[in-house]
């Protein structure tokens, strides 16, 4: 069982990147896999991947890298790098949820995090151009991963 989780806030610019990727994937994922959107609040994240062997989580990052930079991290192998700033708009964020789940033995055996570096997180809707383009590339990469042998 695989779940794809898009994390973000619709009304804070590029913070919505994870949600946009989730929507791009909604009707394209292989049968038996599901796509959900989440605001990033840890308990909801834990609930979202509960009972799944594999989770693919997509979130915006704020590390100071070039906007649109994509990173793929195997979170089941170790903590997310703090410099990614995946705590998003709520301060207990994705990185905390991953560690909470790891401590409680509730982290899916395979947990992959895709980070998309945002340009702007100011109030307002819509992605910046480099982030919108990166969201398309991440959606394609996730789909390849889900359909692939790995």
């Amino acid at each position, binding site marked *: 069982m695989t779940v794809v989780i898009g994390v973000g*806030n*619709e*009304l804070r610019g590029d913070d919505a990147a994870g949600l946009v990727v989730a929507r791009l994937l909604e009707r394209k994922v292989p049968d038996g896999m599901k796509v959900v959107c*989440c*605001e*990033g*609040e*840890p*308990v*909801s994240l*834990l*609930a979202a991947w509960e009972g799944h062997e594999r989770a693919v989580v997509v979130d915006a990052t704020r590390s100071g890298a070039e906007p649109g930079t994509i990173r793929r991290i195997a979170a089941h192998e170790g903590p997310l790098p703090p410099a990614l700033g995946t705590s998003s*708009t*709520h*301060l*207990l964020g994705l990185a*905390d949820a991953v*560690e*909470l789940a790891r*401590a*409680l033995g509730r982290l899916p055996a395979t947990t992959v995090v895709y980070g998309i570096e945002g340009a702007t997180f*100011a*109030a*307002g809707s819509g992605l910046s151009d480099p982030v919108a383009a990166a969201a398309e590339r991440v959606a394609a990469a996730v789909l390849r991963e889900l359909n692939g042998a790995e």
Partner: protein
Amino acid sequence: MSETKTIRTDYLARVEGEGGMLVRMRGGKVSEVKLRIYEPPRFFEAFLRGRQFTEAPDITARICGICPVAYQMAACLAMESLAGVEVDGQLRALRRLLYCGEWIESHTLHVYMLHAPDFLGVSSAVELAQTSPEIVEKALRMKKIGNEIMRVVGGREVHPINVRVGGWYKTPTKAQLEALVPDLEWALEASEETVRLVATLDFPELEIDRELVALDAGGEYPIDRGARLISNRGLDIPISEFYDHVEEIHVEHSNALHARLRERGSYLVGPCARYALHRELLSPRALAAADEVGLEPLVLNPFRSIVVRAVELVHACEEALRLIREYEEPPAPSVDVVPRAGFGHGASEAPRGVLYHRYRLDDAGSILDAKIVPPTSQNQASIEEDLFAFVTAHASLPDEELRLRCEQAIRNYDPCISCATHFLTLDVEDE
């Protein structure tokens, strides 16, 4: 040369949103305290102009992922009061039930994941999960039950989609609600254990006597609505007169407006205020839990708010069970609301305290103007006063401990910074 120091936290953890704190000391005395909130303010108020009155509940629910129901209820109530409609009976009971779900989610999150780590000497919920996994497992299960109520009644766990002006799009069946009962009965007991657990924590000394403000819902503990705003110092006004008695002041260091009672000053909303004003209206087991741990009727130590929040958790579980027991499926999911021109006022008790909405509509139901006063902006001045008093009394503490205690003092208020500006960071700084 007088010694000066500044305690500063640029990024305050474990509050909802982002913000900062600065405490500046000179010669052992506090000279300045600032709670800074960064969000672009008032974005939503502008966003609402020109929208239809029916859209306000769903738009304002997006302000906060933790208390969307508070926003939806206040918006619905404002529109309904302007139209002269009262949503009552089982339609209203469902609103209260949905709101109990939000209280369970929000209070559990705050008590266990955000606030308890401060008292238990761990740095975060993650560390708590490593040292005391059973506590965190219990919290997760309790919060999930809140989520379940939101899902069954509200149609979704976050940002319910089933709420509308006039009632609901679809009402649940009795069987759907009854399915929640076993989990809620477990949660009721777990919340009583929570009261016992948090009552034994070690609380820093601080007592602050201030004006406490809550809604009055006429004979019941205020949650989903309240027609009047009352205080322990004689304030008693219809909510339509909110702005006659409350002024919002822009302070340079914060993006959120500070609210004050005109000619009276700062005031406090939230669990301690509700409890002080309405203790006798708590559900029987909530009151018994408060009595069992000897919780005083007037809690003056803001650090003890965690106990009050736990008592309210008992209340929310017991109240949810009562509402389900008495539920009868209503004949129609909503009542008609015909808009008219004028000002509509609505208020509800968000987990953090009174949330007030005011809308001005034209006769076609289009929103001309919106005002939203969230609880955290009302509590900002009180939070700064607490910091001032706490640092003054504990100026000799080592810097790092003082900084941690100051952060804890801010978390006493469960500040929802994303609501208040609509974000928070702590600065104790050495000049």
